[in-house]
């Protein structure tokens, strides 16, 4: 955690640069908006159902997982109202995957823009993540419909939801900055990320409950609280847990996890942004 404090302040000459870049980005907010719109438009342009897919897709996935896991999960691990439980985890996870995988290609895929016109390059990954955010928000229609159908308990803590979404967006954006930069120099990033995201999916309690992690596990003579460590090491586990707390259980979420995840997300975001602007000058000649 100490190292986290170093990142924004250590390179003294970088701070004003980062600030300048942020100012420039604000001037170009219209471009970010247009890139988001064009990405959404381009995605659904040739499809018959258009944006309805944003709703159909999570529904279909919910169906698949429910069917599969009703066979796989033992009685011990069975979760009440499984489709709802699943949806509360699957939607945020889908948002995260789509945002990360979409923005890995955001700079490379727009090579003709980057090579031929100037604009703050960070607009590309930002637009990539924001386009997915729009999709995610659309999918909440499905989620709230499911909440009503399952007569879930709407708690007053629901107002925390926008904050959780914001934290997740910051985290996804930070990762998007790092990966989109790496992908310019090493195209393998994309391939590696395919595998990593798959592993990450199974390590995160999306289709199963975090209860499956043992509280106390004997490892090399130490008693390890696997569940706690899973949350600490995997910000996505904490994030999805928060969504479940707020939406599925209708309870308040753990302040401890909440703060830690916030800090992690901000650190990743600031480091990612610093990393991105450090190398973005070279994009024009590397592509």
């Amino acid at each position, binding site marked *: 955690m100490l190292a986290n404090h170093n990142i924004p302040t250590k390179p003294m000459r970088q701070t004003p640069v980062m600030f300048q870049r942020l100012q*420039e980005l604000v*001037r*170009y907010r*219209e*471009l970010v*908006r*247009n*890139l988001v*719109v*064009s990405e959404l*438009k*381009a995605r659904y*342009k040739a499809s018959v159902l258009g944006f309805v897919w944003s709703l159909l897709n999570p529904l279909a996935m919910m169906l698949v997982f429910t069917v599969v896991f009703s066979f796989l999960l033992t009685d011990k691990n069975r979760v009440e109202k499984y489709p709802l439980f699943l949806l509360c985890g699957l939607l945020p996870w889908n948002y995260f995957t789509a945002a990360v995988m979409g923005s890995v290609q955001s700079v490379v895929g727009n090579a*003709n*823009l*980057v*090579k*031929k*016109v*100037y*604009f703050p390059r960070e607009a590309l990954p930002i637009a990539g993540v924001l386009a997915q955010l729009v999709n995610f928000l659309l999918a909440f229609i499905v989620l709230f419909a499911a909440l009503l159908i399952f007569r879930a308990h709407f708690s007053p803590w629901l107002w925390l939801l926008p904050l959780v979404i914001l934290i997740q967006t910051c985290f996804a954006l930070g990762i998007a900055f790092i990966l989109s930069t790496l992908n310019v*120099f*090493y*195209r*393998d990033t994309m391939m*590696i990320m395919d595998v990593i995201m798959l592993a990450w999916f199974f390590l995160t309690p999306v289709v199963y409950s975090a209860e499956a992690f043992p509280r106390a596990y004997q490892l090399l003579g130490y008693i390890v609280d696997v569940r706690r460590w899973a949350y600490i090491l995997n910000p996505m586990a904490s994030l999805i847990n928060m969504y479940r707390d707020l939406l599925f259980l209708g309870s308040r979420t753990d302040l401890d996890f909440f703060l830690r995840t916030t800090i992690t997300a901000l650190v990743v975001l600031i480091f990612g942004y610093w990393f991105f602007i450090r190398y973005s*000058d*070279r994009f*024009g*000649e590397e592509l």
Partner: protein
Amino acid sequence: MSVIRNAKATPGQPLIELHHVSKRFAMHRERHRSFQESFIRIFRKSHTAQDEFWPLRDVSITIYPGDCIGIIGRNGSGKSTLLKMISGILPPTSGDLTVSGRISALLELGAGFHPDLTGRENVYLNGSIYGISRQKMSQIIDKIIDYAELGDFIDTPIKHYSSGMYVRLGFAVAIHTEPDLMLVDEVLAVGDAAFQRKCMDSIQLYRRQGGTLLLVSHDLGAIQAICNRVLWIEDGVIQAEGHPTDVMMSYQRYYAELEEARQLAHQDPQDDSEKSSKQRWGTGQIRVTKVELCDAKGEAHINFRTGDPMTVRLHYEAKGAIEEPIFGLAIHHQQGTHICGPNTKFGGLTLPLVEGSGIISYVIPSLALLAGGYLLSIAVINQNNTETFDYHDRTITFHVYPGDSQEQYGLVTLNGVWQREFDPILTPPVTEKYYAR
């Protein structure tokens, strides 16, 4: 190295300042684009030599608001790299770069367009790349669509556009967003003649309104017509900068000399006697063994400028004594038009008897030919034009480059002088305004 970009231009201050700016590209023999290759490289320890390439070296220029700079130079001389650095696409390797104001750049065909979006959507996207708000774009979009002459195509995805349509739309957006600085790299050449004229008119208007322009073009005429300064870049170095006529003169002289050296190096000394019979015939009683095109100092060249003096010297050898031969020459334009055919008889020079070897010369005080490639034929015939001693049919080529003459149309200049004559009856009294200057 420092790069400063100001969003707004300060009045009276330069828009662009480059101090000793250089740019280096590393030319990877093989590009190590993947982890695998990088990994292998660690073990091989083969240091793949990275060739360096400097598209620009030590460039310093200052551009003030209202300037219109034409940039000339051969392909690969660094012109586009310069524009890309000014626009911000490439960072300089060393030197200081300061750019102020809002830039529109037309560097490549369809740059800043998204192929899946319609023309209209792309206008907004392109506008936001130039930093224009959606609100402002909505006000000018009708003008843009009208200007680009796209008609119903404006609501078609632009991947279906022709290259001319790309350029029209790109230029329409760039010029209507009223940038402080506009960078144009040769793309206008894609449009048809009518649109090019329209572009030129718009650029003139943009300039009159105080706009600043950097224009890369191979069309020297266009540059001469709009620019107040010209920058000549060769091998990444600024060769000359200044008044358009001066820079273009030295540019053209440089290429004329280069071309000359190249052609002289390729010339076969025995060329003369080995010409194919199709281009060379005659009885051979008099042979023209060598033809020289000389300048005022008597030095042989193959490149001249309009208005230069030129002397054609014919070296001949005669077998025996020939009575009253006629030496003549003919000049054809490279596209075939026969321009003139002077000879000694027309010129009033009688050669009673020709024996052995000698030189006949035709002196042109001021070359009337306009820029282009020309072919020279030589003939030696007898008095009655019944016998051809030697004939070189269009065997000698030479080039004419524009000199001080501004004339562009046709093949020759008649060296006429334009005057205004005042008819006391028809002309209304001239107001003082005419003499104000």
